[in-house]
Structures are given as structure tokens and as C-alpha cells.
């Protein structure tokens, strides 16, 4: 879906979320702890939210939210973000797009 890919490429770090989703909240906290600010799109507050959910599933996400994109490329959901962070790969990936605190 164009909207999802467009939004995903608009910023370096993009998070598709739902305001009611607690796992999405956890991912937001993680980014906060690292010192980065993602651009967040709450699907439950978007008129085309359902469409976007389906698009995210088609892109390969096991759950539509949370879905993290870095530099326009899909990183994945909570699992992938956690693995990436523990292996030390998350921060280097973010470096070109954000200044670290």
C-alpha cells in the first residue's frame, strides 16, 4: 500500500503502532531509553488504519503493530528490534538518521 511505504520513507525511524497496544508502548519506551524519537503513526487513530494493518501484514509482519522501519526499510516487530538491539546492531543502524543524546 502506497500510504504505508510513503510514511515509512518519510523519516529515518518510523513506528506503526496502536494507542491501545501495550507492546507498542514497550517499543516506544525502548527508543526513549536509547535516546531516539521515532515518528509514530497510530493506526487506530487513522481513517485508513485497517488498510494499513493489512498492508503491514502483507509486507511480512507477523503482527501489524508494532512495526518498525529504519531508513524506509522494514526492521520488523518487537522480536526483531530486541534481537537487533542486543546484538548491538540497532544503534549503528539509527546513527545516520538521529543525533544521539
Amino acid at each position, binding site marked *: 500500500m502506497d500510504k504505508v511505504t510513503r510514511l515509512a520513507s518519510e523519516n529515518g525511524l518510523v513506528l506503526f503502532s496502536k494507542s*491501545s*497496544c*501495550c*507492546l507498542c*508502548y*514497550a*517499543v516506544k*519506551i*525502548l527508543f526513549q*531509553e*536509547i535516546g531516539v524519537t521515532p515518528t509514530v503513526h497510530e493506526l487506530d487513530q487513522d481513517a485508513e488504519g485497517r488498510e494499513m494493518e493489512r498492508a503491514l501484514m502483507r509486507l511480512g509482519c507477523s*503482527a501489524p503493530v508494532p512495526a518498525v522501519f529504519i531508513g524506509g526499510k522494514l526492521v520488523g516487530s*518487537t*522480536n526483531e528490534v*530486541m*534481537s537487533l*538491539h*542486543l*546484538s*548491538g546492531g*540497532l544503534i549503528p543502524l539509527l546513527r545516520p538518521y538521529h543525533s544521539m543524546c
Partner: protein
Amino acid sequence: MDFPSTQFVPSRMMGTYEPIHQIGMWGENFKSIGNPSISASVIVEVDNKLENESETASHEMPAPSCKHDQEASKPFDKIQRRLAQNREAARKSRLRKKAYVQQLESSRLKLIQLEKELEQAREQQGLYIGGGLEAGHLGFSGVVNPGIAAFEMEYKHWMQVQNRQLGELRTALNAQISDIELRIVVENGMSHYFELFRMKSTVAKADVFYVMSGTWKTSAERFFSWIGGFRPSELLKVLVAQLDPLTDQQIFEVCNLKQSCQQAEDALSQGMEKLQETVSATLAAGQLGQGTYFPQVAMAMEKLEALVCFVNQADHLRQETLQQMSHILTTRQAARGLLALGEYIQRLQDLSTLWATHPREPA
């Protein structure tokens, strides 16, 4: 009901096998329930299983005696290892099936008993026991989830294998074995933990509260529980203290791992708090005290589904932490680390036992 398999398993492992004695034990247990028609059919099924197992038991006998040929028979060892793994998988499957049948039987009997009690209560008091309260009053906890029964069987077996592996680690570290062979022992240890996470994932789908409560663990282990298991940062703390000397590069990598692990842990903890707030708010919505509450409970149920995700994420974090440590450490360090972790858990379990049996002043 006492499940006889715990007596069953050790005698198999020692190779002393008494099928007639085992059948007798099974028969006795079923007689005590007082339902001979059921017990007959189950004993027949158990008979068949025992026959199958006696065949495999005779194949198992040669294995222990080949240890003195170790040097000349490395390929033989590898084949033996694979055969042993297959036997374990088959045995696990049999244990699961046994547990399931056992649970079905006891659940059925509990149901019959409860129905009788309910009849009596209604007759005596002429009360109408309303829908929602019924389950609570009569304690449906008597009817246990077969997923839980299966998990508890598998966990008992998992602990036995764990203790055996710890022994192997101890021996391997003291002996002059090659790095490649030590690597195999380490890989077995790691896979064993990953197996536990898979088991937990399955039972979490059956009953996530069971995993959260840590019922299958000892009391001291439960004291340290975080979202259904040990804290990854605790794990790192215990490990790192045992691993001197580390190279500068390793110290740097461990430091980074500690930090990212802590951040991930904090994120999940705060997510859990948010979940608690959400469920609580949903449940308390509308007026309390009016007696009609089903919509709120139904909505809270939906929110609670997320708990399964959190438990899975926590286990994923534990697995990743172990995985990353094994990348940072040398084979020898990883072996020492696994042994240290295993012994730490054993100490927690001993603490629980000691605490339970420690005489205390009456209140």
C-alpha cells in the same frame, strides 16, 4: 492422584526393568478410584506401551559400557548421541500422552463428583446458584488443563536432563577434551534452554497465568521471577562474576550487552505496567456495585490477550541474552558460564527446600 511415572523413569535409566511390577502399580492406582471398567482398558493400553518400551530398553543396555572405548570410537559416539536424542524425543512423546490420558481420567471423575455435590447442595438448600458465581464457589481448579499437565511432566524430565548435563559440563571442564568436543557439550546446554523456552511458549497459549505464576518452579526461584522467568540482567550479573579473566574486547562487548539488555528489560517492564493499568481501568469502567459487569469483563479479557505476547517477548529476551553471551565468550568460558548458571539455579532450589523444612516458632 499420585502419578507413578516418577518411579517409572529412574528404573528405566538404570536399565533394571521390571515390567510386571510396573503393571501392578498401575493396576493398584486405578483400583483405588473404583472404576474397574475404565482401569481395564487403560491397563491394556499401558501393557502395550510397556511392551514397546521393553524392546527399546534392551537396546539401551550396551550404551553405558562403551565409555572405555571412547578414544577409538568417536563416530560410534556420535551415532550413540543421535540415538539417545531420538530415544529422548520418543520418551517425551510417550510421557505427554500418558499425562494427557491421566488428566482426562481424573477430570472426568472430578466432574462426576462435582455434579453430585451440586445436586446435593441444591436439594438441601434450595438455592439457585447463578452463572458467574458457580465456577468460583465450586472451585473448577479441580479440572486441570491438559496443557499444564503435559508441561509439568516435560519439565520434570527437563530438570533431569539439566542435572545430567551439568555433570557432563563439570567432567568436560576437568578433563582434557578438545575444544570441538567441548563446543558440542556447550551447544547441548544452550539447546536445552531453548527447548525450555519452546515448552513455555506452548503452555503460555494454554494458560498464561500458569506461566506468570511460576508454579512449576521452587519458591525461591519464584521470588526472583520476572514475567514468567529469570531476569536477563540478573543472569548476566551471575555469569560475568564467574568469568574472569575477560579480554578488554570481551569486557567492552559484555558492557554493551548489559546496557542493551537492561534497556529492553525496562521497556518490557513498563509495557507490563501499562497492561496492568489498562486491564484495571477496563475492568473498573462503568459503575461498580450494580451487579451487571459482563461487558467490562469481556473487554478486559481482550486486553489480557497481550499478556501472552509479553511472556513470549520476555523469553525471547532471555534466549537472546544467552545467545549473545555465547558469541562473546570462548568455548571454555561458555562452558564455565553454563555450569555457573546451572549451579546457581540448583542453589536457589536448595534454598527453597531448606526454607520449607526449616523449623519455625509457632505464631
